[in-house]
């Protein structure tokens, strides 16, 4: 993979929220790449900055949040400093987005056909007639039965799972090269989740679309992603091939996270858990943010913040893998 | 107590107050209006009700800065030689008295009915809310006018003149209570279904005690906001009724009465008789409304 030019590059991204009690750093020094057609899973606890990273990439950070440092490049072009109108042409056309709750993502007052058609006519050189035809094709592709009739239905006439299929069609219909999917299955019934993930995976592969898949469901990651990034307190703790991270996590936090997944092949009396809770953004400890909870903590962790360093098969932000200055 | 004071000055409420110059300014204006009104008998330059001190030869004097004005009458005089500034201070007293009393009346009525409706539920709730709905369909000024008209028709003229002030307070209060009842009922419904209230019920705490000790404290914020915004409205309603000539009796002129009387002289050029009471009314209502607006935003974390 390393010889292919990356589609998306995030370099040292820092997102800040100015508040009256001081500036909160929501993301700090976040870096990763996504290659064309690759699926990058992003995992972590709530508030780790997964969704924030997605919002920063599509250029829709909620004010007063802002990118304070770093760069985001799409196909080698810097997109984090574009004007609103230039970025708008990229959204939908080159980066599609899927949100968490299909019940609230669709405009209740417009038919799904209209919402599909307006997305396509905005980005593609086609007229209303062609857009409608393609809208029906897209509804068929995402598995809506009787698409030709359902195209004039309103969102409330679909079930939650069906609505998320419509959202997927909306995200893909202008044929973007990258999809940012923010917890696309969290709000769905468990029985529907697998179907929707399978659909997303199949369409991404067929269209050659790369995907940043934000979730806290390790099962989804293991099944779908090529590589995975583990986030903790606004930073990337570990990043690497999915198989390696799941089976042989190097960062103590990822290891703890993976140990808390219930294994399918044997019975366990009690699942492993990580003691304590992730720090609030206003109280991130000095040194490694994970040090108060880390079972392998040593002096250096309490003073210096580790960057991502090579840890064999993956990269981990952990002093355990620092070869230059051995632990002490 | 000192701790409570410290907590207040360290609170978000105080912080947002000091951060908004408009709010501070309106608090100052409101304070000046209130002090001027309350202290009128002691600080007003003249007593407009002391007929002996009135001098018809001083009638229609323009404000002091006009060539024909007299320093003694800073804002000029009316047709009977009354000092406009003093009349405004005494008038503001009546306006404020009626506005405050009517708001308190509406608050007490609305909060108790709202609590009852929200807590009792069932038929009590639907009947009370139906009444609210129907009354809210009509603008409050119309309701106040009707109440005033009916009372006027029922009571003999002499009796009516004596208690006219109370009639106005009653009429305005009656016209404003549904807003309070709605607000309180909404919050009560939310609180009622919370687990701690359910728990209190289960262990047999009397309903009335649950309402007052658990539910009421949770609705104080919204009620305070509605009451502040309502005070401005009540003062306006009183002024409107008095302007229409059905409000407070002419023996106790409010700002609205002064504006009505002055209106007759608008065309002959004596604009100050009506405009200055009008400005005073606007200053009072605007400052109260601005404070209410700020309070609503400050207490509503969603808008921050």
């Amino acid at each position, binding site marked *: 993979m390393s010889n292919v030019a990356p589609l998306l590059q995030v370099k040292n991204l820092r997102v800040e929220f100015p508040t009256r009690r001081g500036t909160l750093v929501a993301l700090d020094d976040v870096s990763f790449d996504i290659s064309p057609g690759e699926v990058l899973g992003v995992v972590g606890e709530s508030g780790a900055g997964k969704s924030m990273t997605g919002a920063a990439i599509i250029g829709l950070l909620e004010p007063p949040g802002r990118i304070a440092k770093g760069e985001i490049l799409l196909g080698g072009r810097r997109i984090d400093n574009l004007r609103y109108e230039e970025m708008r042409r990229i959204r939908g056309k080159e980066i599609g987005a899927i*949100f968490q709750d299909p019940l609230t993502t669709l405009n*209740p007052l417009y038919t799904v056909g209209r919402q599909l058609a*307006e997305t396509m006519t905005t980005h593609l050189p086609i007229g209303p007639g062609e857009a409608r035809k393609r809208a029906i094709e897209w509804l068929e592709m995402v598995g809506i039965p009787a698409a030709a009739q359902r195209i004039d239905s309103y969102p409330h006439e*679909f079930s939650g799972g069906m609505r998320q299929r419509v959202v997927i069609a*909306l995200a893909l219909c202008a044929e973007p090269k990258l999809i940012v999917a923010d917890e696309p299955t969290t709000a769905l019934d468990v029985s529907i989740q697998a179907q929707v993930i399978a659909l997303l995976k199949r369409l991404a592969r067929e269209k050659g679309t790369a995907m940043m898949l934000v979730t806290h469901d390790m099962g989804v990651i293991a099944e779908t992603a090529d590589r995975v990034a583990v986030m903790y307190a606004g930073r990337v703790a570990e990043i690497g091939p999915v198989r390696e991270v799941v089976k042989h996590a190097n960062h103590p936090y990822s290891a703890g996270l993976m140990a808390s997944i219930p294994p399918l092949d044997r019975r366990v009396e009690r699942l492993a858990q990580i003691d304590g809770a992730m720090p609030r953004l206003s109280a991130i400890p000095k040194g490694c943010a994970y040090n108060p909870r880390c079972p392998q903590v040593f002096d250096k962790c309490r003073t210096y913040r580790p960057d991502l360093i090579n840890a064999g098969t993956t990269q981990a932000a952990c002093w355990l893998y620092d070869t230059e200055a051995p632990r002490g | 107590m000192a701790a409570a004071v410290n907590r207040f000055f360290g609170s978000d409420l105080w912080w947002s107050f000091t951060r908004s110059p408009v709010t501070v300014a309106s608090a100052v204006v409101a304070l000046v209006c209130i002090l001027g009104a309350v202290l009128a008998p002691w600080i007003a330059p003249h007593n407009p009700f002391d007929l002996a001190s009135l001098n018809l030869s001083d009638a229609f004097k323009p404000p002091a800065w006009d060539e024909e004005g007299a320093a003694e009458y800073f804002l000029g005089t009316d047709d009977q030689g009354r000092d406009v500034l003093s009349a405004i201070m005494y008038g503001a007293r009546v306006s404020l008295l009626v506005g405050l009393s009517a708001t308190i009346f509406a608050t007490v009525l609305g909060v108790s009915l709202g609590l009852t409706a929200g807590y009792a539920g069932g038929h009590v709730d639907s009947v009370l809310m139906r009444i609210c709905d129907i009354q809210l369909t009509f603008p409050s000024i119309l309701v106040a*006018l009707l109440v005033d008209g009916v009372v006027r*028709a029922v009571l003999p003229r002499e009796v009516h003149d004596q208690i006219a002030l109370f009639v106005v307070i009653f009429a305005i209060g009656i016209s404003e209570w549904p807003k309070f009842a709605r607000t309180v009922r909404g919050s009560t419904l939310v609180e009622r279904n919370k687990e701690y209230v359910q728990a209190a019920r289960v262990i047999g705490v009397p309903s009335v005690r649950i309402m007052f000790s658990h539910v009421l404290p949770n609705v104080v914020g919204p009620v305070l906001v509605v009451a502040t915004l309502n005070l401005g409205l009540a003062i306006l309603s009183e002024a409107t009724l008095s302007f*229409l*000539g059905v409000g407070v009796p002419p023996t106790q002129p409010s700002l609205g009465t002064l504006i009505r009387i002055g209106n007759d002289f608008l065309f002959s050029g004596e604009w100050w008789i009506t405009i200055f009471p009008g400005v005073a009314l606007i200053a009072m209502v605007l400052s109260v*409304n601005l404070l209410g607006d700020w309070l609503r935003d400050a207490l509503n974390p969603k808008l921050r």
Partner: protein
Amino acid sequence: MFAFIISRILQAVPVMLTVALISFAMFAYVGDPVAIMLGQDFTEAQRDQLVRDLGLDQPFWVQFATFIGHAAQGEFGLSYRLSRPVAELIAERAPATLELAFTAAALALLIGVPMGVYTGLYRNSWLSRFFLTFSLVGVSLPTFLIGILLILVFAVWLGWLPSFGRGDTVKLGWWTTGFLTVSGLKALVLPAITLGLFQLTLIMRLVRAEMMEVLRTDYIKFARARGLPNRAVHFGHALKNTLVPVITIVGLQLGAIIAFAIVTETVFQWPGMGLLFIQSVGAADIPVMSAYLMLIALVFVTINLIVDLLYYAVDPRLRIGRGKGGH
């Protein structure tokens, strides 16, 4: 659709009945209509005759039913003050009030909605701040003071516009209109601004608040994430969703305009129903008051019905029968 209208009309019936009951109670029990109608000199026989004629010896419900029957035909008896049929008095005055209310409402909507959208979209621009300050002044200014200030400036000082009355009117059947003459239109300007200003600021603040609320929703964020142009996001997606709550309140406000006309008509001596009403309140002329109350209730109920129909047109979620839900 038909069932929807019928159910809404049925919902309006209790409201009208309640108002009718209040109206009737005022009519029957406030003051003594017999004494008022007979004047000073009368015999006991005359008195009994009148009581029978008026049906005052009948039981309450019979009297109430008779009252409703008459009211439905527009009969509210004689005005105590003017000794003329109330219906006639109101019919004479209605065109003036309706034309004034219509003009004021049009003014409030055509200016208030765009201002609300603008201030909702560009919250921090200086023009928004100016509009907001202006609206706060508009809410705090009592209607009669606005009228007085306008009269002072435009009638007394500048002498551009008349300060009272309707100007010349043209008769179209029983309707008299001021829309067709220059003096009629000139006379309309100041009262319409006075009456419309408060509603204008209210509508503006409402649209602004709703707009801000809608702009925070997920579907607006998603519309942005799909790269739709701002114009489509703001005026297509956001504004249409804003309309749903705005329609309700605006409907109620338009009804309120007719009632608020009382004050404006007093300031400008505008010969409408409001002026008639206020004169009746002063003179405790109960038949006119109760007829006016019923009329206003009817206006409100009608407006509510129209609002419901508009809702139905805007929001597809209402068009589906209850049995067929979302899941």
